[in-house]
């Protein structure tokens, strides 16, 4: 019985992987195409599209994306971690309401958020700027940090904090030496999710970018609509490669933490 179900599971998993990753793999050969349109299979080999990625429109938007994503990860973590503490540890009226509000970006359609933020940000004169994007993405990425840190906090043994206090560490030292190291995996996961969210977020970014400040996904979107060049395939290949590297790195980091049994 187990052999049949195991085989079925294997077959299903393979199909799932092909379905998820197949379309992306098509982009890789197209990125090395000698043709100037996206066609499959490519007629010949060329690195020209990778060269074209070094032009200013791509590099400047990549830098903008990097800035926005890094700052988003930073602020979402700095705001989300204390928020998670309040929501997990605090006992105050309206706690569930605050929780729902913080998590609401995960259910409100991004189009609506984009329109609303544009309307407000224009008045604040931060529409079309890096700070504007950071503010928007921070609000939207907050749930990732709150959920991840909250989960770490809930599973943490409260006696560790009591023990720390008992041994002479005040609230700050207890947080620094005991609580933070315990919830660090959750904090890092939250920060990573926030970064990735901002890095490939396009809906809100379309509303909040200007011709001078554009993130990578917004430029890609523009290119698809105007000229369907294999540059896009080259960029997509690089980004996919980057994701794989990040994933491998995080796996290695997790392995390294093993000795302490976590």
């Amino acid at each position, binding site marked *: 019985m187990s052999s049949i179900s195991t085989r079925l599971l294997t077959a299903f998993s393979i199909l799932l992987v092909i379905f998820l990753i197949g379309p992306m793999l098509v982009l890789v050969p197209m990125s090395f195409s000698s043709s100037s349109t996206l066609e499959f299979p490519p007629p010949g080999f060329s690195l020209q599209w990778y060269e074209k990625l070094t032009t200013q429109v791509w590099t400047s938007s990549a830098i903008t994306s990097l800035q926005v994503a890094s700052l988003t990860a930073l602020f979402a973590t700095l705001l989300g971690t204390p928020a998670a503490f309040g929501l997990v540890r605090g006992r105050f009226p309206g706690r569930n309401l605050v929780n729902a509000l913080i998590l609401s970006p995960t259910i409100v359609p991004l189009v609506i958020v984009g329109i609303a933020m544009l309307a407000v940000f224009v008045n604040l004169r931060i529409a079309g700027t890096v700070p504007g994007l950071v503010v928007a993405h921070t609000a939207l990425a907050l749930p990732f940090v709150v959920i991840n840190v909250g989960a770490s906090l809930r599973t943490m043994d409260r006696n560790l904090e009591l023990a720390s206090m008992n041994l002479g560490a005040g609230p700050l030292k207890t947080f620094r*030496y005991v609580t933070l190291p315990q919830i660090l995996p959750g904090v890092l996961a939250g920060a990573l999710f926030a970064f990735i969210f901002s890095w490939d977020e396009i809906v809100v970014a379309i509303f909040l970018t200007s011709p001078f400040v554009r993130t990578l996904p917004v430029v890609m979107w523009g290119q698809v609509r105007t000229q369907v060049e294999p540059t896009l395939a080259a960029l997509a290949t690089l980004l996919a490669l980057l994701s794989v590297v990040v994933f491998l790195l995080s796996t290695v980091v997790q392995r390294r933490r093993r000795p302490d049994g976590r």
Partner: protein
Amino acid sequence: MDAKPKEVGSGSSSHLTLRDLTKQFGSVRAVDKINIEVKGGEFVTLLGPSGSGKTTTLQMIAGFVEPTAGEILIDEQRITAPAYKRDIGMVFQNYALFPHMTAAENVAFPLKVRRTKKDRMRQLVTEALEMVGLADRGNSYPKQLSGGQQQRIALARALVFHPRIVLLDEPLGALDKKLREELQLELKRIQEQLQVTMIYVTHDQEEALVMSDRIAVFNEGRIEQLGEAEELYERPNSLFVADFIGESNIFPGRFTQSNGRYSLSTGNRKLSVSEHAEPPDEGAQGALVVRPERLKVMNASADAKPTPDQNAIQAAVKEVIYLGGERKYILATSDSENLIARHQVGIGEVEPRPGDEVIACWQIEHGVVVFDQPSRGKQPEQEE
């Protein structure tokens, strides 16, 4: 293990006073006007069933729980400081070792937050690890240590900074019996060596008897009796204590007096009460408590007769349980009460067998008189 610690914990033998200490959780009074004096260097156990307030008392001493009323004094000084300024060590039941630190880093933690100098810190940590016999495991992480080793590290960590008092909250509760007994003796040895004041919480009466200088028996938020192990066992002052500590034969009834002699009417029998007992009020409700090893079981057919200074009850042997050094008899009386007796094995007397008609008797002065306490009503479980 045999290295003599020179520094760790030495010279810290503060004495502790709890004065009318009270904790109210909503409508439940978890701790109700507790009073204890603990001398410097004394080992006092708070013993009681779960929900009796012993852990809450410990948490108030540690500073984790704010008392509703009453005060805590260490060396005559009233303590209200937050937990991290109290200089009280604590050992938790689940060890509470920091998983991201090695054993040595765990032990060094209280020194690190006190900004102890590096080389002094290293010396103290080494001594503390030697004291608990784990000098070679300093670089291990808690998960790489066994439960007993983790608890030893936790003990070293609670002692290394010379705390004024050490609190232990069922520290051996998660360990198996053999290891528990081994650690009991070791803990007691360390406590005597360092002369450090220890407050120990447990619900295991055997553990309390083995380790404590004095035991406070908790029940429903109050101390029923505070005294040395022998005192609690031989002269319990309430039915609760008699029942909770060791095994007992309890004869409830009403005290009566005739010709200056007291006796207890229980069912349709009259039991004599020792002249040395505190004279009960005429008609007072109470009980006679007789320990199993005080109860002598004789075959009814044999010509052995109870003497006038003995109480005697006829019964039948229901069960004989062989316990190695002794035999335990479970007897049934005509009123179908169960009595328990314990005899040393091998003194050569004829040993009764199941089904035998026997006479169970005891010296009158071995019957302990306890009076009914005014009922306080049951409280819901609060602790743990």
